[in-house]
């Protein structure tokens, strides 16, 4: 099956810092999403981004499908940004989460 690797696995930052999270995948897929999982386990949709660039407030994402990677940018981090970030790839019958990046924002 498709392999989805995220880096870095862990990231600790001071409040106000910027960060870039990366998602590499081994095969072409039809769809890609980024999620933030909060401490209660809820998966919150950040971006549906099979290709191109999108921005939503302090967050933006870019997917380069031909080179099989996606990037999530977080600017001016806040403590509420803490949690685990997953990229998620899905085709018609293949649905795979990435390995995740655990982000901790220190006040």
């Amino acid at each position, binding site marked *: 099956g498709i392999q989805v690797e995220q880096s870095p696995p862990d990231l600790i930052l001071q409040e106000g810092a910027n960060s870039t999270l990366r998602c590499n995948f081994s095969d072409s897929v039809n769809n890609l999403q980024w999620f933030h999982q909060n401490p209660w386990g809820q998966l919150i*949709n950040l971006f*549906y981004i099979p290709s191109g660039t999108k921005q939503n407030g302090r967050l933006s994402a870019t997917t380069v499908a031909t080179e099989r990677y996606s990037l999530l940018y977080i600017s001016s981090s806040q403590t509420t940004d803490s949690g685990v970030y997953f990229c998620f790839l899905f085709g*018609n019958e*293949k*649905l795979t*989460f990435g390995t*995740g990046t655990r982000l901790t924002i220190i006040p």
Partner: protein
Amino acid sequence: DAGVTQSPTHLIKTRGQHVTLRCSPISGHKSVSWYQQVLGQGPQFIFQYYEKEERGRGNFPDRFSARQFPNYSSELNVNALLLGDSALYLCASKLSVYTGELFFGEGSRLTVL
């Protein structure tokens, strides 16, 4: 509009028992998928259903089964529970199996004693 709803939110079972988890998709969504998330790990895909037919299966034993009903709601069944089945079970829905953004419910947290 209601999001994806799952029930029960928490439950405790003992080894060897059977469990049924339920999921109602967002109105208009015809595809439902299930995931298992063990503590400290990422979610793992279990099943996908579309128009009441199975459209994808992850690497889980036959003790796991699911079905989708005419109203597009879904059930996940797990037989002969093991301690290792303790996990957060997540359900997601989207418009069709071919495309569309996925939306997740809040999950059912299963503890097997």
